[in-house]
C-alpha cells in the first residue's frame, strides 16, 4: 500500500468542477470546456495508476475517522481500478456526445445536467475506490442523489414518476445495504475490503452472516437490476440518452454489480460463500434474470426500452460470473463489465443519434433507416453482434470465459452454460431484426413483426375460454399496439412538432457514408465506443482491461485453489 493523493484527486477533480459548471450558466462553451477538461484530467489521474496497480502497488488515501473502527478511506486496487478506469474513460466519450445531443435537441437546464453529470462521476469513482463497505455505501447513496436530477431532467409527469420510482427503489436498496453493512460490522468488527474475504465472517454466526449477505446482495441488486428489482431501469429511460448510456448502462448499474463483486470477493470471499451456501441462490437469480429479461426485450418496440431490458439481462451475466466462483467464470464476469459498457454505450448512442436526427424512437418505424444513418447503424450492428457474443467483438471474449467457467462447475454447470447460450440466441433474436430492417427493408415494404404486434400466445380469435363476441372484440383491442407517437427520450409528448417519428413522407433520404447523417459530436463518440468494443474483442490484453481482470483473479487464492 502506498499513501497517495491520487485516489482522492480523481474524485475531487469533478467535485470541484460542479460549482464552476454551475457558475458558467451564461457561457455554455466555457462550461462544456470545463466538463471536457475535467473528464480528461480525471481519466489521466486514474490511468496514471494503472502501471502501478498492475505491478502490485495499491494507492491509499485516508480521509478521516468516520466512526469507531471505521474510516472514510479510498484504496485503488485492481478491481476498483477496473471500474474507475472504465467510468472515467467513457465519461470523456459521453461528454462529447452530450454536447452534440443536448444542443441538437436544444434541451433546457443544460447547466444542471452537466453539473449533475460531474457529481455522478465523482460518486461513481468514489464507489470504485472505496476501501470499505461504509465508504462504498456513502458514495453509493451520493450516486443515487446526483443521478436523480438527470432521470427527472424532462420535468414531465412521466419523468417525475420515473424519478420517484428511481429514488424509492435505489434508496430502498440503500437501506438494505446499510442494514447489511451494520450486520457485517457487528459480526466482523470491520468492513474493510480484504481479498478473499474478511476472516472473522467465516467464523461468525452463519444465520446472521447469511442474512447480511442477503441484505447486501439485495441492496446492490437493485442497482444491478436483478429481477424482481429491475423495474426502475426501463422507466428511467425517460432520461436523456447520454444519461441512459453512461449512467444506466455503465456507472449506476455497474456500481450495483461492482458492489456485489466487492461483497463476493472482498467481504465474504469465495470460500466463505461456499460454506454459507449463498452462491447458488445468487447464481440462480442471475440466470433467471438474464433469460427472462431477454424474452421481455423481444417484445419491446421502443428502442431504448429494449436496450434497457438488454442491459438487465447483460448485467446478470456479470453477477452470474461472480456467483459461480470459478476462475474462468470470474474472469468472464469481470471482463464483461467493460465489454458490456462499450457495447451498450454504442447502442444507446445510436438510439440517441436516431432520436436527435429523425425523432424516431420505435423500432417499428425504423425500417430502411440504414439509408438515412448508415454509419450509426453500422456501429449499432457491430455492438449488437458483440452483445450476442459473436467473435471479434468484446462480448465474445467475456462470454467465452463465462461459459467455460460454467462448464467447469462440479454440478449444475450445464444448466448455467445453457442459460448463457440460450440468452445469446435471444440476443440475436432481438437485435438482428433492427439491423436487418435498417439496411434491407424500406418503410413502404417491410415484414410484419409478430412478436411485437401480435398478442401473447398467438392469434386473438382463438381464446381459450371461448368468450362471446364482445369479449373477443375487447381482446383484439388489447392486442392492438397503440399508434406510435412521438415521445422525447421515451416520455415527453412533443405536440409542437408536425413530424411524429418514423420516416418522412417521401421515405428516408440518402445521406451517404461520410458523416452527413449527424454531427461529428455524436458520430465521433459512437464510432469511438464501437472501436473500443472491437479492440477489447480482438486484442483484450493490449486493451489493458483483461490484464487488470487477470490481476484481480490471481489475487484471489480462494478461487484459484
Amino acid at each position, binding site marked *: 500500500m502506498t499513501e497517495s493523493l491520487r485516489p482522492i484527486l480523481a474524485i475531487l477533480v469533478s467535485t470541484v468542477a460542479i460549482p464552476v459548471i454551475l457558475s458558467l450558466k451564461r457561457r455554455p462553451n466555457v462550461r462544456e470546456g470545463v466538463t471536457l477538461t475535467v473528464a480528461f484530467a480525471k481519466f489521466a489521474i486514474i490511468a496514471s495508476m494503472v502501471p502501478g496497480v498492475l505491478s502490485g502497488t495499491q494507492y491509499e488515501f485516508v480521509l*478521516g*475517522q*468516520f*466512526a*469507531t473502527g471505521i474510516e*472514510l478511506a479510498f484504496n485503488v486496487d485492481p478491481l476498483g481500478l477496473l471500474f474507475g478506469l472504465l467510468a472515467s474513460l467513457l465519461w470523456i466519450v459521453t461528454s462529447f456526445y452530450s454536447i452534440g445531443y443536448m444542443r441538437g435537441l436544444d434541451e433546457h437546464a443544460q447547466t444542471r445536467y452537466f453539473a449533475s453529470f460531474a457529481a455522478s462521476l465523482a460518486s461513481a469513482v468514489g464507489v470504485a475506490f472505496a476501501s470499505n463497505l*461504509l465508504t462504498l*455505501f*456513502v458514495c453509493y*447513496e*451520493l450516486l*443515487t*442523489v446526483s443521478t436523480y*436530477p438527470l432521470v*427527472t431532467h424532462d*420535468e414531465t409527469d412521466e*419523468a*417525475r414518476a420515473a*424519478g*420517484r420510482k428511481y*429514488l*424509492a427503489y435505489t*434508496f*430502498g436498496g*440503500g*437501506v*438494505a445495504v*446499510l*442494514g447489511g453493512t*451494520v*450486520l457485517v*460490522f*457487528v459480526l466482523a468488527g470491520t468492513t474493510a475490503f480484504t481479498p478473499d474475504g474478511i476472516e472473522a465472517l467465516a467464523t461468525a454466526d452463519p444465520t446472521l452472516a447469511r442474512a447480511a449477505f442477503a441484505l447486501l446482495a439485495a441492496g446492490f441488486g437493485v442497482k444491478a437490476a436483478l429481477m424482481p428489482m429491475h423495474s426502475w431501469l426501463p422507466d428511467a429511460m425517460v432520461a436523456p440518452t447520454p444519461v441512459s448510456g453512461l449512467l444506466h448502462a455503465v456507472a449506476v448499474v455497474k456500481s450495483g454489480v461492482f458492489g456485489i463483486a466487492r461483497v463476493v470477493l472482498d467481504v465474504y470471499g469465495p470460500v466463505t460463500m461456499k460454506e454459507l451456501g449463498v452462491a447458488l441462490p445468487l447464481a440462480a437469480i442471475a440466470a433467471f434474470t438474464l433469460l427472462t429479461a431477454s424474452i421481455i426485450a423481444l417484445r419491446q418496440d421502443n428502442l431504448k426500452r429494449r436496450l434497457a431490458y438488454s442491459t438487465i439481462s447483460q448485467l446478470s451475466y456479470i453477477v452470474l460470473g461472480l456467483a459461480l466462483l470459478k476462475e474462468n467464470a470470474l474472469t468472464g464476469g469481470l471482463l464483461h463489465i467493460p465489454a458490456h459498457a462499450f457495447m451498450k454505450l454504442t447502442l444507446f448512442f445510436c438510439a440517441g443519434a436516431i432520436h436527435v436526427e429523425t425523432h424516431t424512437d420505435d423500432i417499428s418505424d425504423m425500417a430502411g433507416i440504414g439509408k438515412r444513418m448508415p454509419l450509426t447503424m453500422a456501429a449499432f450492428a457491430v455492438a449488437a453482434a458483440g452483445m450476442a457474443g459473436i467473435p471479434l467483438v468484446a462480448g465474445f471474449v467475456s462470454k467465452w470465459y463465462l461459459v467455460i467457467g460454467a462448464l467447469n462447475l462440479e454440478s449444475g454447470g450445464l444448466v448455467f452454460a445453457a442459460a448463457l447460450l440460450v440468452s445469446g440466441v435471444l440476443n440475436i433474436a432481438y437485435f438482428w431484426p433492427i439491423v436487418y430492417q435498417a439496411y434491407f427493408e424500406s418503410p413502404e415494404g417491410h415484414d410484419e413483426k409478430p412478436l411485437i404486434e401480435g398478442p401473447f400466445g398467438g392469434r386473438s380469435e382463438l381464446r381459450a375460454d371461448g368468450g362471446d363476441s364482445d369479449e373477443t372484440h375487447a381482446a383484439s383491442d388489447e392486442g392492438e399496439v397503440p399508434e406510435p407517437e412521438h415521445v422525447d427520450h421515451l416520455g415527453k409528448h412533443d405536440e409542437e412538432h408536425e413530424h411524429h417519428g418514423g420516416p418522412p413522407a417521401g421515405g428516408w433520404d440518402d445521406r451517404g457514408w461520410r458523416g452527413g447523417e449527424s454531427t461529428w459530436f455524436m458520430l465521433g463518440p459512437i464510432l469511438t465506443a464501437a472501436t473500443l468494443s472491437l479492440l477489447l474483442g480482438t486484442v483484450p490484453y493490449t486493451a489493458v482491461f483483461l490484464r487488470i481482470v487477470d490481476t484481480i483473479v490471481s489475487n484471489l487464492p480462494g478461487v484459484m485453489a
Partner: protein
Amino acid sequence: MIEQIPVLLVVLPIVGGAIPLVASLVSDRAGWPVATLTLVGQTGLAGLLAWTVSTSGTVSYAVGGFAAPYGIELVVDGLSGAVALLVAVISLGVLAYARKAGPHSGPFYGLYLLLVAGLTGMTVTGDVFNLYVFLEITGLAAYGLVASGRDASAAVAALKYLIIGTVGASLYLLGVGYLLAATGTLNMADLATKIGEMAAYDSTLVLTAFGLMVGGLTVKVALFPLHTWQPDAYANAPDTVSAFISALVSTVSAYALARLLFSVFTVEFLTAVPVARWALVGLACVSIVAGSALAVSQDSVQRMLAYSSVSQFGLVVAGFAIATPLAVVGATVHLLGHAVMKGGLFAATGVIERKTGATTVNGYAGMGSRVPVSAFAFAVLSLAMVGVPPAVGFVGKWYIVLGAVNAENWAVVAVLLASTLLTLAYFARLVERLYFAEATIHSKPDEAPVTDGSGQAVSFGMIAVVVIAAALAVALTAAVPELQAMLEDTLPPLLNQ
C-alpha cells in the same frame, strides 16, 4: 471560576433578558444588541464549559452553598455540556435571523432570553424538581413566543400548546412526588443510589413515577400520540420562533428524558423492568412511523416539518431507550444534528415564504430557480434529514442502528432502517416540486410577497443562517469523533459499562 459557569449560564440570560424588557419602555431598539451581547457571552461560557468537561471531567456546582443532596446541584457532564453548547450556539444563530425577520419588540427579546435560560437550566440541573421549574420556565417563554405573531391564530396555537404542555409538566411533577415518597430525595445522583439500594425497581411507587415522569416528558418531546400541540405551534408562530423552538425545545426535553433514564432510573431499571423499555421503544417506533405518515399527508410545508419532528424524535428516543453506549452516542448525535437541520429547514421556509409567498407543498413547485440559494440549502437539509451520507443525519442513524443490532433488537432495526424511506417519502416530494415542476405561484413584480406581516424583505443574515445550517448539517459529521470522545468519559458510568 470554572465551577461557577453552570449557574452563570442560567443567570446570564435571565439578567440579559430583563434589560430589553425594561428598555422597551423607552425604545424597542435595545433588544437585539443586548440579546446578541448576552448570547455571545453565553456561547463563550458554554464553549469554555464544554472544553473543560471534555478535558477534565464533570463540573458540578451547589447552588447557594447547600451541599447535595439537600441543596440544588448543577451538574455538567459530556452529554449536558454538548447540549448546553448547542443551545447557546443555535440561539445566537437564530438571532442573526431575527434581526430582520422580527418580531422587533423589547418583550420579544426578553422572552427569547428567558427561553434560553430555561433550556440551559434544564440542561445543567442535577435535581428533578429543579428540572420541573426550568421545564415550566421553558414552557412559559415558549408559549409567549409562539403567541408573539401578529396573527391571532398564533394565540390559539399558543393556548393549545399551553394547556397540553402544562398537563405534561404536571404529570412530570406528580411523578416527582411519587419518587419523593419512595426515596425522600430529589437529587438525581442520590435518587439513583437510593433506588438502587432499595432494589425496588418493580415497586409500584417507582413504576408509577417512571410512567408519569416519562409520560410527562414525552408530551414535551411531542412523541406520537402526544404531539398534537406541535404542528399548530410551529406553523403559526413567527418564522424566527418556529426556527428557534423547533430546533431546541423538543431537543432539550428529549435530553431531559435521557437524563432521567440514565441518571435517575438507570439502565438497571430498564433491564429489571423490560416492560418499561419495551413501552418506550414501542412508543418511539410508533412515533417514527405515524409521524412520517402524518407528514406525508400534510399540505403546509411547516406542518409537514413539524410532523417530521415527531418522527425524528422517535428515532432519538429509540436510541436512548436501547441504552447501549453506541445507541446513546447515536441518539445524541441525532439530537444535536436534528436541531441544526430542523432549525435550518424552518428558517428556509421563512425565507422562501417572504420571497415568493409559497407556504404549501404545491406552492413550492418551481421555486428552485426563484430562490436558488435557499432552495438549494433546503434540498441539502432535506437530504441530510433523510440520512444521505455523509451528512450528520446519517451518522446518528448509523450509530443507533449499530446499537440496536448489538442489542439484537431486530424489530427496532427494521423500523429504524425503514425510517429512511419514510423520511424520503415526504422530503422527496418537496425537492421534486422545488426543482422539477412548473411553478404554480407566479411572481407579481408590483406586488410585495405575502408575509406574516413582521417584515417584508429578506436580509443577508437570514440567508446566511440557512446556508450555514446546511453547511453544518454536512460538516458536523467531522465533529462526531470529537463528540464521541466527550461522551466517552460520561457514558460508561451512566450506562454501567
